[in-house]
């Protein structure tokens, strides 16, 4: 099969007739990258359209081609390597792929704007915000400096940045992440574009800030009739904001439809699996998460047949043939041979999920007991050399019992990691004590520590950087066995490594591989195996699943729970995803700005949160259900996170709290037990 032939899709175009209302029409788009490993087909035969004022979401596995599609529309693919061998992108009646560079430049920023994932790096650090906002105004609209300045002030006001005139003189680093993303939106809005493409605009932001930004975007889109393409992997976001959803898998569109339909009545097995593998706040907690076993395919290799087939529970012989994109019963599109059977409800997803009860055996003596823990960092920075103290953790107390999982949630920078590091004795606390099985870790001698170390282990967020890239999996897992002489001789060590690999669901031959030869999920399993090798009784999981794809995340969570049941492990599970925490934890600690706000049982805290912060936190996290989300009024938390160098007086939350009164600015509220096992640090409760 020659390349050219491969672009000719067998399918007939089964899409809605083009009308005037169609703003963007992507038709049979192919994108290739030249790499040393050969050609990567990042996008194949993608077709979709966007109507004026419509909000379309693109979801899908990491690497499925979402960003590349967006960049192709902007024609911002890397010049040297990226290529669009085939396709048509019609925007407002013009084929963007046929425009000259100059014509395309005139469209960018003028008619189509793009907002990127990383607000921290998307602004030029050495130019003022003002210049960066006025730049497109002067270029596209030919405004004078003064006019542009006026408009920039207006724009900043529009995106809710106070004191805009002064802010224009400042530089990006003087803005918080959320504010930078607002600036990006202001830039995007500057020339009144018809379409804004937002590629994961909030993934890098905190939950509360994320909600602010998305509400803002949706509001502006509606008011100014701007079409919006949101690329995300957060299904809650999709549910709340999207009119229509496009699901991509392995460079292809696999399903398209109205949001409600895709969420409630998915017509492609991948969409089904995806939706089922997300832990949800809005549903009772299932004992085990659904997962999609297996891994996405390698795009550098030519494939035939359905790309999801290897992971699909409904695979049949016909799946060896490439399925066409077919119109479904609901008027959407699905690239599945069996979509009709799915529609008919004949196929039900029976993954590894379901079943299994949570062990909630609580013993009376805590395994780990943290009391009045505090950690202060002395910082000195910049040319001014002005120093300050960052009170990263203050007065934190909690217990963890054997076999229990304690969830620790809170926004970025609230001190979660620091608490974990203190427990691991990677940092020395400024005050307080940490008792582990009776011994105070903070005062333990080197010998005592050596014994304790074996009992307390850790799993980190980024599975790649937590494995030494120069050691094989076997060496990584075998190292503690060797150092602590947990295995007599090479033989036994080898056997033990094999056993551990098996325990975390890896094949024995993986022992010879290096970390870079593994997928993210597999790497995280190696991390877990390494922790298990020491036979610990307690593991600190610091964002252990945050960096993983949704479909893989489920696998790891299930594994952790499984191990807990079998080995009686206790976990401190640190995360910012409330749904995940809810799923895995028995009790939850909510932190804000270095302090504990609320501690309660999992069910209590999600059902009846008492602390205002916990409430907004739960509120800000959208659930993957369009019906619920669209009916919900936004309850937004105002303001930004306070700065550590100028901490608020009194209750740390008073600057953003809807209930805050003068009193809150005076008193530091103590953590009070309201009900047995439910403590809150708020004077208004």
């Amino acid at each position, binding site marked *: 099969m020659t390349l050219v032939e491969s672009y000719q899709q067998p399918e007939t175009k089964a899409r809605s007739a083009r009308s005037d209302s169609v703003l963007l029409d992507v038709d049979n788009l192919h994108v290739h990258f030249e*790499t*040393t*490993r050969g050609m990567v087909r990042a996008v194949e035969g993608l077709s979709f359209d966007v109507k004026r004022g419509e909000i379309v979401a693109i979801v899908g596995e990491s690497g499925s081609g979402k960003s590349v599609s967006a960049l192709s529309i902007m024609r911002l693919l890397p010049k040297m390597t990226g290529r669009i061998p085939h396709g048509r992108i019609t925007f407002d009646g013009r084929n963007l792929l046929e425009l000259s560079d100059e014509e395309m430049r005139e469209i960018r920023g003028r008619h189509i704007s793009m907002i990127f994932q990383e607000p921290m790096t998307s602004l030029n650090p050495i130019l003022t915000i003002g210049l960066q906002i006025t730049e497109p105004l002067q270029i596209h609209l030919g405004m004078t400096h003064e006019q542009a300045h006026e408009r920039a002030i207006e724009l900043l006001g529009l995106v809710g940045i106070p004191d805009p005139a002064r802010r224009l003189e400042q530089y990006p680093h003087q803005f918080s992440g959320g504010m930078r993303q607002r600036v990006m939106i202001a830039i995007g809005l500057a020339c009144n574009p018809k379409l804004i493409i937002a590629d994961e605009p909030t993934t890098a932001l905190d939950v509360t800030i994320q909600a602010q930004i998305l509400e803002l975007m949706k509001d502006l889109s509606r008011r100014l009739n701007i079409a919006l393409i949101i690329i995300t992997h957060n299904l809650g976001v999709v549910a709340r904001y999207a009119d229509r959803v496009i699901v991509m898998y392995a460079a292809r569109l696999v399903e398209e439809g109205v949001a409600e339909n895709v969420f409630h009545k998915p017509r492609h097995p991948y969409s089904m699996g995806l939706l089922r593998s997300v832990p949800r706040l809005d549903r009772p907690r299932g004992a085990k998460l659904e997962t999609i076993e297996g891994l996405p395919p390698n795009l550098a290799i030519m494939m035939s047949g359905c790309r999801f087939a290897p992971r699909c529970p409904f695979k049949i012989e016909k799946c060896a043939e490439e399925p066409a994109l077919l119109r479904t019963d609901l008027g959407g599109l699905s690239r599945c041979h069996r979509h009709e059977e799915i529609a008919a409800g004949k196929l039900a997803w029976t993954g590894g999920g379901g079943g299994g009860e949570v062990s909630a055996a609580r013993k009376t003596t805590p395994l780990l007991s943290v009391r009045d823990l505090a950690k202060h960092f002395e910082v000195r920075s910049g040319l001014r050399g002005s120093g300050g103290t960052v009170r990263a953790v203050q007065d934190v107390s909690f217990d963890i019992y054997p076999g229990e999982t304690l969830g620790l949630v809170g926004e970025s920078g609230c001190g979660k990691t620091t608490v974990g590091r203190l427990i*691991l004795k990677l940092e020395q606390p400024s005050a307080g004590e940490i008792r582990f099985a009776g011994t105070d870790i903070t005062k333990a001698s080197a010998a005592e520590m050596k014994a304790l*170390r*074996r009992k307390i282990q850790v799993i980190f967020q980024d599975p790649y950087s*937590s494995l030494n890239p120069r050691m094989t999996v076997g060496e990584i897992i075998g190292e503690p066995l060797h*150092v602590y002489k947990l295995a007599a001789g090479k033989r036994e060590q080898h056997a033990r490594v094999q056993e551990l690999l098996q325990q975390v669901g890896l094949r024995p031959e993986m022992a010879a591989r290096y970390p*870079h*030869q593994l997928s993210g999920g597999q790497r995280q399993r190696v991390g877990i195996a390494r922790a298990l090798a020491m036979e610990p009784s307690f593991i600190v999981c610091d964002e252990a699943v945050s960096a993983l794809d949704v479909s893989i995340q489920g696998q790891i969570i299930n594994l952790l729970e499984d191990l807990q049941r079998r080995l009686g492990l206790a976990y401190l599970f640190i995360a910012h995803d409330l749904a995940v925490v809810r799923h895995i934890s028995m009790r939850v600690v909510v932190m804000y700005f270095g302090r504990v706000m609320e501690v309660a049982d999992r069910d209590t805290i999600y059902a009846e949160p008492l602390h205002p912060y916990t409430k907004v936190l739960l509120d800000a996290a959208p659930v993957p259900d369009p019906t619920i989300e669209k009916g919900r009024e936004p309850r937004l938390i105002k303001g930004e996170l306070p700065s550590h160098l100028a901490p608020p007086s009194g209750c740390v939350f008073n600057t953003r709290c809807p209930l805050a009164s003068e009193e809150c600015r005076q008193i530091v509220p103590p953590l009070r037990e309201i009900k047995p096992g439910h403590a809150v640090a708020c004077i208004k409760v």
Partner: protein
Amino acid sequence: MTMVSPDAAFRPRQPRHPVIEFARAQPTGMAGLAFIVILFVAGVFADFVAPYDPLTLDYGAMLAPPSWEHWMGTDAFGRDVFSRIIYGARTALAVGFLASLFGSGIGAAIGVVSAYFGGRIDMAIERFMDILLSFPIIVLALAVVAVLGKFPVGGLDLNLIVAIAIPMIPKVARVVRSAALAIRGLPYIDAARAAGYHHSRIIFRHIAPNVVAPFLIMFTAFIAQAILLEASLSFLGLGVTEPTPAWGLMLSGTSQEFYSQAPWMILFPGVAISLAVFAFNLFGDALRDYLDPRFKV
């Protein structure tokens, strides 16, 4: 752009030799490496390759211009320049290699230790490195040569090598320190600390192997610099001593008396130095690109 797709690993691993892979990815670097190998072979087999003995004086052919007998002419003593360049490759490579090994080895060790322990130790080491760095290289080299005297082993002055190596130490230490600092902050080091491993194990097993890339890059770059510095020192009369065949020496000493009359005496050794250094730099650059994951697709 860094986009390593998660499935990269799942292609069946083609057992490709790293040299072949390197050659494919970095053809210029391979050219550099090839030249280095040629030099090395020429140096090792100089006895067979060189047409003349590099030490024999020939009063009948003093300052002879390039000809069929003497491709690159002869020097003031009638010694064949070509042969001396070939034998000189020995000196150059040995000095370059040993000095660089010594300098970047010690520098790397200091850098890693400094980064790992941090705090006061780091502070003290850094200050001392500052002092060394702000000390003029020439004085440092001179002082070392003068203080230690000559210590020839097999025709090579080990103290000269030390003198060339010392100025490298602070630079390597800096680079390796910052690389090690970055690694020290990575979770796998935390994991190792959390596992309670001994400092030496963490340093040697976990940090050191991961600063190999910057180390190798510095190492090749410093071979090139050592060759240049040896030439400079010889030019100032502090390097290799006559009648040892060495490139730097061929540019200095007595040839300073004759070069304007017999330019070939300095042209060819100068070209030899430049080419060798060029080759090492090409190779080093390519190695950097090759080892830098950001350049891997």
